[in-house]
């Protein structure tokens, strides 16, 4: 009977019930969609970082990453690439020589990391070749080609085919110089990265440095990104004298970014929940006050406080039982839609590029979040009805009905 009364009471004032249900639907949807957006945002950032720069795993001389000394070398690097590729967990691998140098044109000079890469295997590991906006990717047949970023090109007034000079020190601190020709201009979504990187063919820079079958870095992608830590162990065992690190170790900012996004999402979540709570307290309080006389009569004829309380809370529970799943379904549909279509942030991406963010966000969420956040919104709604229910039982029947 309580259920029956509560259920019918809901339909007594349709508009008010619709307001409460609307608040719950929107609350559940917003909270889930926000989580999905956040998930997509972080995933996009991590994917970008992996694809453009860090790959899944990198191998260096143990001291190299701390102090980029030119003689922290990996010896026999070609054989090591071949050895890595034999391992089934590894999808692709490439070797690099990295030196800190100066890139100069007639208009000026800039300090850059000169990445000597293998034009054939580099594209299997990173997507630098897809970020070329003018000219072509590196090519073994050309003499001393170089890829510079759009930013560097602008600063140094470079175009495709412009000539530049690279200067750097070899391991005996001798200054070396080589003349290179711009073959292409690249632009990734990470402006900071672009500013300090240039690409040349590994063989060209090796020749200048006198390297033979040597280099500084091995980078690889895995077949199963989830088995990151297992793969790290395998490779550490395979190359015991070198240091194998995951992208999380190499780019701790990925982690930091993830937690920052998470905490801002929590703040928005709390704001939504508070709005929901106040909306529901308000409407349910109105529903209770409107029925003062009726509630007084119910208590006068012997309905005890527990029952009156239950009845009021039941009304919100019922609204929540209808509305929360609707919100979840709505969220599921929109998250799936934008998971395929993506949300275009290019209008804002000038600012975002500074942080290495993708222009498209593909919403994504762990399936368990649907019921977890759905339940959280439902529970919030029910908690919000406790106060109006408490108000209902604090009415004194004599005052509620002026005449018996």
């Amino acid at each position, binding site marked *: 009977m309580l259920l029956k009364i509560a259920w019918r009471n809901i339909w007594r004032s349709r508009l008010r019930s619709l307001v409460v249900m609307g608040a719950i639907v929107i609350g559940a949807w917003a909270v889930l969609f926000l989580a999905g957006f956040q998930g997509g945002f972080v995933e996009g950032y991590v994917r970008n970082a992996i694809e453009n720069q860090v790959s899944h795993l990198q191998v260096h001389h143990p001291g190299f990453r701390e102090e980029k000394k030119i003689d922290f070398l990996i010896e026999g690097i070609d054989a090591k690439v071949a050895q890595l590729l034999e391992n089934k967990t590894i999808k692709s691998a490439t070797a690099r020589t990295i030196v800190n140098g100066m890139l100069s044109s007639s208009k000026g000079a800039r300090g850059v990391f000169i990445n000597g890469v293998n034009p054939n295997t580099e594209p299997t590991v990173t997507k630098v070749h897809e970020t070329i906006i003018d000219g072509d990717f590196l090519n073994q047949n050309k003499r001393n080609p170089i890829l510079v970023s759009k930013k560097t090109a602008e600063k140094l007034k470079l175009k495709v085919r412009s000539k530049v000079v690279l200067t750097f020190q070899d391991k005996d601190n001798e200054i070396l110089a080589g003349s290179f020709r711009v073959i292409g201009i690249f632009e990734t979504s990470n402006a900071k990265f672009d500013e300090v990187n240039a690409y040349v063919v590994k063989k060209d820079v090796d020749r200048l440095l006198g390297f033979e079958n040597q280099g500084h870095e091995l980078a690889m992608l895995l077949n199963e990104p989830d088995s990151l830590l297992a793969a790290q162990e395998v490779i550490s065992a395979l190359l015991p004298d070198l240091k194998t690190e995951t992208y999380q170790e190499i780019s701790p900012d990925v982690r930091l970014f993830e937690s920052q996004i998470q905490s801002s999402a929590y703040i928005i979540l709390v704001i939504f929940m508070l709005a929901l709570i106040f909306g529901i307290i308000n409407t349910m309080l109105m529903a209770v006050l409107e029925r003062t006389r009726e509630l007084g009569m*119910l208590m006068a*004829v012997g*309905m005890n406080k527990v029952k009156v309380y239950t009845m009021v809370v039941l009304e919100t529970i019922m609204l929540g039982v209808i509305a929360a799943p609707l919100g979840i379904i709505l969220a599921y549909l929109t998250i799936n839609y934008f998971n395929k279509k993506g949300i275009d942030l290019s209008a804002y991406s000038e600012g975002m590029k500074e942080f290495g963010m993708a222009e498209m966000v593909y919403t994504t969420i762990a399936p368990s979040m649907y019921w977890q956040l759905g339940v959280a919104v439902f529970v919030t709604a029910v908690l919000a009805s406790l106060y109006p229910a408490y108000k209902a039982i604090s009415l004194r029947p004599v005052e509620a009905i002026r005449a018996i």
Partner: protein
Amino acid sequence: MKIIEIQNIKKTYNPDTVPVRALRGVDLEISKGEFTAIVGPSGSGKTTLLNIIGGLDKPDTGTVNINGTDVIKLSDNEMINFRRENIGFVFQSYNLIPVLTAKENVEFVMLLQNRDSKERESRSKSMLEAVGLSDKLDKRPAELSGGQQQRVAVARALAGTPAFVLADEPTANLDSESTANLLDIMAQLNDEEGMTFIFSTHDQRVIDRARRVVTLVDGNIESDVRK
């Protein structure tokens, strides 16, 4: 058999601000089977007295014994349960739960009393029949006239098998035909089932039907006449 015994009750509203001495020392005894009207000018304390008899309010001083229980000692929740088991109420208005049908409204008190569904079913039907509404079982209050609603309230009050029924101006919102009709039903239930009724009224025609008339003036009982 006395079912209500009250002695020297006093009640003052707003004792700290603008004190209103609503009852100034009232003694009253009511026996089983009586059909009593509480009358008196507006503001004389009728409602206050009925609220105290009904366990909806407590006096400042005095003793209130209802159906053998000293109700002043009861807590709020005990009071609610006491009312549920012992007292039938008919209010002037807002008597019924608007979202329930006439029959469901009558069943409601029995449900609070945890009676089984068979008994609820048969008793709610027979009570509504007793008040002449067997054709309105499934109507909601909004679909009934004021007089019909009051009759449903009487049926509901009786359904809980109370010791007595309290009604504060039950006919105040009714036309004369409905008033006569409601009084007929109450008198009949008093005759046939021996149900005790205590009601307040301003209406001379209602006063004429009472078998005992208690007149209140300024919070004191001025006269108590049995016909």
